[in-house]
């Protein structure tokens, strides 16, 4: 194999591919990349057996061939290589990199040990505007669980039906749901699946700003074809909780507050948050304010009064400060709406007049 390309082009591809390698496995070849120039295109492939990626790199092929090299070594080399153009050449299992000034040899792995890229056919396909999908996943993924005990809770749930995608995640303490409505989603039948958090994170990073993207689904995998790359992720096998039943339909108390106000006061209060990470939130219709307070026996105490339009009963509740501020941060409207019933039932956060994003948070015990 002999090929030539610009440093920038190959560097971007290598960095992206490297994210899909795995370090800690019985099979060391999984931390490597395959550079494939067998036909007329230069392709870089990587997989950790959960996700897999293939990226096409623009460049010129002089001799066909392919090689497998450790991802980390190649990416650190390219990150520090200051020159414009690079020539790659194979010599048995070694990769020879030559420019005017340097001559480098990277030891590779036997080619036949590298996993075969699965050929999968998508049974269902749909198209989504990339920016909306990106925003949807990023606003929801915060609520996914970080523990692996329940795979369905550490995944992101998709439900696709006519012109609509609902994306949701929950760790059983909070739940986030984003609804995307677009005429581009051509899907007649209802389709639902769970993408593992890692795969969803990767999709987030791959998505660009301004185009439609095609997603293909079969029983076990999701395929994303996009510009010059193909990305595959395993799907989680499991059943996402029937979450719509827990969304409260009516509320005793509703408060509307300016987002900039509440988020700046949350940051203030966050300084004094105690060991349990708890923040007291008091919805006081008489004072027309939301009063938040935190205290830490080692640091000090803090109380903020945020003026707000409140209707309904006076309610005090306690929340995990991080969960609450993460939810607030996802709201894009100027005004935020807080809805709740009692101090032990879920708090619903959404933008005023915007039902496309919902964040539901359970309080902490002991007001």
């Amino acid at each position: 194999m002999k090929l030539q390309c610009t440093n920038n082009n190959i560097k971007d591809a290598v960095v992206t591919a490297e994210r899909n390698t795995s370090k800690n496995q019985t099979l060391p070849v999984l931390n490597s990349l395959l550079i494939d120039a067998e036909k007329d295109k230069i392709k870089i492939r990587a997989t950790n057996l959960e996700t897999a990626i293939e990226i096409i790199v623009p460049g010129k092929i002089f001799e066909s061939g392919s090689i497998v090299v450790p991802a980390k070594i190649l990416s650190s080399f390219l990150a520090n290589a200051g020159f414009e153009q690079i020539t790659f050449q194979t010599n048995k299992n070694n990769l020879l990199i030559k420019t005017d000034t340097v001559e480098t040899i990277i030891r590779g792995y036997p080619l036949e040990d590298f996993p075969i890229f699965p050929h999968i056919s998508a049974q269902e396909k749909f198209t989504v505007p990339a920016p909306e999908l990106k925003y949807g996943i990023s606003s929801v993924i915060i609520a996914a669980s970080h523990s692996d005990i329940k795979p369905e809770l550490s995944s992101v749930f998709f439900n696709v039906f006519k012109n609509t995608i609902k994306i949701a995640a929950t760790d059983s303490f909070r739940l986030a749901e984003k609804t995307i409505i677009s005429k581009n989603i051509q899907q007649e039948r209802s389709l639902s699946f769970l993408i593992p958090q890692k795969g969803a994170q990767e999709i987030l990073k791959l998505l660009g700003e301004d185009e439609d993207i095609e997603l293909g689904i079969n029983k076990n995998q999701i395929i994303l074809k996009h510009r010059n790359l193909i990305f595959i992720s395993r799907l989680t096998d499991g059943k996402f909780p029937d979450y719509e039943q827990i969304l409260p339909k009516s509320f005793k108390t509703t408060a509307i507050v300016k987002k900039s106000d509440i988020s700046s006061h949350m940051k203030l209060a966050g300084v004094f948050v105690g060991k349990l990470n708890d923040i007291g939130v008091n919805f006081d219709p008489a004072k027309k304010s939301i009063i938040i307070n935190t205290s830490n026996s080692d640091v000090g105490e803090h109380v903020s009064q945020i003026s707000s339009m409140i209707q309904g009963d006076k309610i005090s509740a306690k929340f995990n400060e991080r969960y609450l501020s993460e939810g607030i941060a996802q709201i894009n409207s100027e005004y935020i709406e807080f809805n709740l019933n009692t101090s032990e039932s879920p708090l619903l956060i959404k933008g005023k007049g915007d039902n496309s994003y919902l964040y539901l948070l359970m309080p902490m015990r002991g007001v």
Partner: protein
Amino acid sequence: MTNEELWNVALGEIELAVSRANFVTWFKDTKIIDQSNGIITVGVPNGFSKEWLENKFHKFILKSLRSNAPEIRAANYSIVAPSANNVKPTKPKFKKEPIFNDAEQLEFREFYIDPKTNLHPKYTLDSFIVGSFNELAHAAAIAVIKNPGRAYNPLFVYGGVGLGKTHLLQAIGNSILKEGPNKKVYYLTSEKFTNELLNSLQNQTIQSFKEKFRDYDLLIVDDVQFFANKTKTQEEFFHTFNTLFESGRQLVFSSDRSPKSIPSIGEINDRLISRMEAGVLVDISEPEYEARLAILKAKSAEKKIDLPESTLELIALMVQKSIRELEGALNTVNIQSKYQNEVLTKEEVRAILSKNLKPRNTITPSQIIKTVAEFYDIPEKSIYEHTRKTEVVRPRQIAMFLLREDLKGSYPYIGQKFGGMDHTTAIHAYEKIHEETKKNTRLEEEIKGIRGKYQNQQR
């Protein structure tokens, strides 16, 4: 040879011939899922394994299979999700998660409730702590589990708020389900029954509602006292009850008072109540000190709360009412000690508890009167009127009795409270009820129920 044996033998051969790393990576979670006409289908966990086995090991796999089962002609590969038992949970990673006690963060409970039975799996008989206050109820529950539909039918459990009725009821459901997973078990509150009935009436699906409820092997209805005053619901429930009962299905009920004390209006109610009483009635009373301590210890172990024994003893001593209250006190003390990051002294624990436990004397006379009126379902103001209607006289006497007993009010004060009656009326009322409670257990029950109500209201 079964598919499993065949695959194990083949795997044994393959393992010898390939490297350890290759074997572990590619053959993990594989199995034979089908064998017909000499064609074997191998289930593999993901697309990578499928490609790999197809392209690199196919001949080898076929050879190993044929050496054990010569009739095999071909093998193909198909992706199947590994069954739940085989998935080893990888070590939970709590990298980003802050370390805090989950006990304080509430969860979406509905996620854990089985939609088919409406039971929460956390309620089991193993976690039900038995003491003299509930051993009868526990024994009856066991009898029902061993011999559903025959031993005690219906089983009626009653007792105050937060004493573990729901736990026991759900545990019966869970245990019966464990013994016979195909049994149709359903748990619901009387309120839910009412709501479902109303919905089905609105949506005109009453027929499927009826069929649904008449199909269960075990029907558990919690808090049946809320059926009071709902004639239409009672009627529907009465029929459901009869259908189930006649076909030998088990029924379990709970209530915060004995069936006799549930306010009776109309004929249906009386018939329903007499049906409910027909089986066995067991009550759960307030736990005694030893049981309270045992409960506290079990709860601390369950929630990984680390409090010294002396603190638990103090909580058990001070909190006497209900198990729910006991749990609340335990949590409060635990949070406080975590805040201060030290073991709390006896005085501190006492201070926290006395702040949270409202003493009984914060009950006002009007609260008692209101509760009594509600309990007997008479208008509150009629108690204050100088009327001699029996349905009013009796509740009035009970209210006077309670004012004297619980609030230590003087007789003239009590008389004055009830629209300026003479103090002798109050004395007469107190003595009459006092005497009668000794003989009449039903009255005693009723009074206990009323007390339970207003004492719980304060929280």
